[in-house]
């Protein structure tokens, strides 16, 4: 009985031992493209990205963080939840650094990431990225006319932001521009007009065309895919600069998926039976991250990893497309409120019908049309300032704004497009032709000023001209104003032509405006000098910048030492190593040596003729020191071949 039981037990164990590896391997074998976010190839890559996030919310750098947001969203996670502990999320990081994005490609990347995160690209980090991108449209295409890649990503971004590709002039024109620049011979696209085709840009062009409504079976798309196929190597990947790489494969796979094809299907296999997904996997490391190429992490492995995640999930760009917002009812108009001593409000509002209560009588007035006072009411709500009205003269009049009440002959008056109105603000019905409602504290005789600047983005040190003019109600004409004070980085005075030249020698963002006794303060014009400043300067403030060095920072060069070929009793030729102090403090230098070479380096390494553990050095700020390193091989040394070791140069603050 016992023998039978033992025999059965052994049999069961043997069968289990045979089946177990198969059972364990089964899930991995079952996983096929497109992969789910829970499969190791994707989840390991996601874990790597999560590990790279720092306390600011950033992953690697600003651009990589935007790509990572797209990957996170593609994997079905909320990027707003990606944070280290209670620190800001990766979306918070992008918002806090929104000012970093520049040019069409920068705006497009932001829109794609913001939309993927479910946020509003028209109001993110204080910037309207859709308006910024649309401002890059030159009437024919988006951004630099010599570039094509800013059109590919621009089209994808506008579609992602909810613009209708069937009606958007910018998208329609840009698609025409893309189609016109498809290479006539190989049918691919390049990064620039007239340049050689490449897979990355052809893939982007295909995704842009499909996002814009082109059929995947259209000639442009199918020819583009055929071009990508011609670049396929035996390993299944796509050729780029002489070899395959993870980034090119990822975008190629995305374009194939966007066209509704399976990149692992027979049509996308090389002659050796490999497909681009096979080749993409060869770049995945043990830590889950994707390297650019074998043994080459590339400049931004996190960015490469984010793009690979999107490709493996079978997703493509744009990751998310926002629903277009229905147009707001009413009239959109700028409201500018000039107080006695300063501007109170200057921004656009949309006004429709309004309900306004007269403060003296508590009577509520329903104004069914968009009116000038309705615009003030909207501005007060948005700007969170108070205003007071009275109806004691038969209609609604404004008596106070933001605590400034009329006194003597001065009070609150209004103009529409600089023209004095003949009816009360509650009776002035606005329409789409009007641009600005100006409420101002002053007298009936005060004349409106207007300022214009011939260059709102001068370089630091380059002059620009401000011109001040006044509106003559009687003649309905604008006239130049002499002796008006123009406020920029300091005060200026206009000449007989109403002009003044202004030169600012540092990067700054400044509101330039004009004043003169008996006149209404002018509109402000924002001038961005050089790179501008993240915080807008008002009037005469100055920008301060400083570049702080790390307390302790130094470099060591080279990072490997080669003593050549040596034998027992030999002393190596001296090898020089250079240390440079790149920090703020004077450095004390010591060394540590370890090896897996039977103490070859521990016993035989010398720096400046001293045993390494007796060596001490100091390096002053901005200074470099060269140290001579030699290796002595003991007479009785027994090992042969390559011997590994490590020398660490330690720096700390040097005592004075």
């Amino acid at each position, binding site marked *: 009985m016992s023998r039978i039981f033992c025999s059965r037990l052994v049999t069961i164990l043997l069968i289990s031992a045979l089946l177990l590896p198969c059972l364990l391997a089964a899930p991995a074998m079952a996983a096929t493209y497109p992969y789910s976010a829970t499969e190791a190839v994707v989840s390991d890559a996601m874990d790597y990205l999560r590990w790279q996030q*720092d306390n600011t919310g950033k992953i690697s750098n600003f651009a990589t963080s935007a790509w990572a947001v797209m990957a996170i969203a593609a994997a079905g996670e909320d990027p707003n939840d990606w944070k280290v502990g209670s620190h800001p999320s990766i979306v918070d990081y992008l918002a806090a650094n929104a000012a970093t994005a520049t040019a069409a490609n920068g705006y497009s990347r932001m829109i794609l990431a913001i939309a993927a995160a479910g946020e509003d690209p028209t109001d993110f980090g204080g910037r309207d990225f859709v308006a910024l991108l649309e401002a890059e449209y030159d009437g024919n295409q988006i951004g630099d006319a010599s570039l094509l890649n800013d059109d590919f990503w621009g089209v994808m971004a506008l579609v992602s932001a909810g613009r209708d590709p069937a009606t958007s002039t910018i998208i329609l024109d840009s698609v025409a521009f893309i189609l016109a620049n498809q290479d006539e011979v190989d049918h691919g696209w390049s990064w620039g007009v007239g340049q050689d085709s490449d897979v990355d840009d052809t893939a982007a062009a295909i995704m842009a065309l499909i996002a814009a409504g082109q059929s995947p079976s259209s000639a442009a798309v199918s020819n583009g895919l055929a071009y990508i196929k011609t670049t396929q190597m035996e390993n299944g990947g796509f050729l780029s600069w002489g070899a395959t790489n993870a980034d090119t494969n990822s975008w190629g796979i995305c374009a194939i998926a966007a066209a509704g094809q399976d990149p692992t299907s027979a049509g996308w296999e090389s002659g050796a039976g490999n497909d681009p997904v096979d080749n993409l996997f060869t770049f995945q490391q043990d830590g889950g991250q994707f390297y650019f190429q074998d043994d080459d992490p590339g400049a931004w492995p996190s960015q490469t990893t984010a793009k690979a995640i999107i490709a493996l999930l079978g997703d493509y760009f744009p990751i998310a497309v926002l629903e277009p917002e229905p147009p707001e009812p009413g009239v959109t108009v700028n409201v500018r409120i000039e107080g006695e001593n300063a501007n109170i409000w200057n921004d656009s509002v949309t006004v429709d019908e309004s309900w306004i209560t007269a403060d003296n009588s508590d009577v509520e007035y329903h104004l069914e049309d968009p009116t000038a006072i309705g615009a003030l009411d909207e501005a007060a709500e948005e700007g969170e300032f108070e205003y007071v009205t009275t109806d004691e003269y038969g209609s609604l009049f404004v008596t106070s704004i933001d605590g400034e009440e009329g006194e003597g002959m001065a009070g609150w008056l209004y103009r529409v497009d600089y023209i004095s109105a003949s009816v009360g603000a509650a009776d002035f019905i606005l329409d789409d032709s009007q641009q600005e409602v100006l409420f101002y504290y002053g007298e009936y005789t005060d004349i409106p000023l207007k300022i214009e600047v011939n260059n709102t983005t001068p370089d630091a040190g380059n002059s620009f001209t401000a011109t001040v003019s006044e509106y003559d109600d009687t003649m309905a004409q604008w006239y130049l104003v002499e002796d008006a004070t123009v406020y920029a980085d300091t005060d200026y005075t206009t000449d007989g032509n109403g002009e003044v030249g202004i030169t600012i020698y540092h990067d700054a963002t400044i509101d330039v405006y004009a004043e003169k006794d008996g006149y209404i303060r002018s509109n402000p014009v924002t001038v961005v000098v050089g790179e501008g400043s993240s915080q807008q300067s008002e009037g005469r403030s100055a920008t301060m910048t400083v570049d702080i060095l790390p307390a302790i920072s130094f470099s060591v060069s*080279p990072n490997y030492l080669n003593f050549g070929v040596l034998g027992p009793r030999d002393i190596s030729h001296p090898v020089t190593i250079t240390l440079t102090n790149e920090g703020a403090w004077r450095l004390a230098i010591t060394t540590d040596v370890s090896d897996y070479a039977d103490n070859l380096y521990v016993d035989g390494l010398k720096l400046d003729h001293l045993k390494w553990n007796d060596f001490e050095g100091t390096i002053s700020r901005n200074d470099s020191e060269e140290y001579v390193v030699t290796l002595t091989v003991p007479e009785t040394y027994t090992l042969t071949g390559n011997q590994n070791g490590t020398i660490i140069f330690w720096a700390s603050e040097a005592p004075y």
Partner: protein
Amino acid sequence: MASKLVKASAVLLPIIGIVLAASSALALSVGVAPGKMDFTVRPGGTEVQTLNIINQSEQASQFQVYVEGGHQGWFEIKPAEFTLNAGEVRGVEIAVAPPLVTAAGDHDFDMCVVCLPPEAELRVGAGIKVPTHVEVTEFPVMALGWWIAIAAALLVLIIVIIVRLIARARYG
């Protein structure tokens, strides 16, 4: 690639000797801020500060952060190992938590930040030692009083429960 070729040729060399292959001579550059750290913490408490580490090399590098100077169990370093791309800065959270029974006093450590190139022959690393001072303050008297009061209350409660159990056992 150059490194691989030289390694391969080294293996093929027939002579008996020590061969140390050449590799690409890149520079490592590491920076930290602040250059000194001061913690003031009571026994049983925790103070967290951030040590910013900057990879000023022109290539991605691997970093490790650890503490030297005893009482290593007081420290929690997050992350202790990571990769920084060229020019990248990462804040490492250093948490110091001396046990409740620690006597008041001053303790000095070195927070070691080391950047190493990949494993190969005689690699040259760059490390920075950031002097780290930990002042363990007296356990707050108020807090101590509360602990004693809570302990006394618990003791009384336990005695009452035991007395009642004994009484039940005796008198049913």
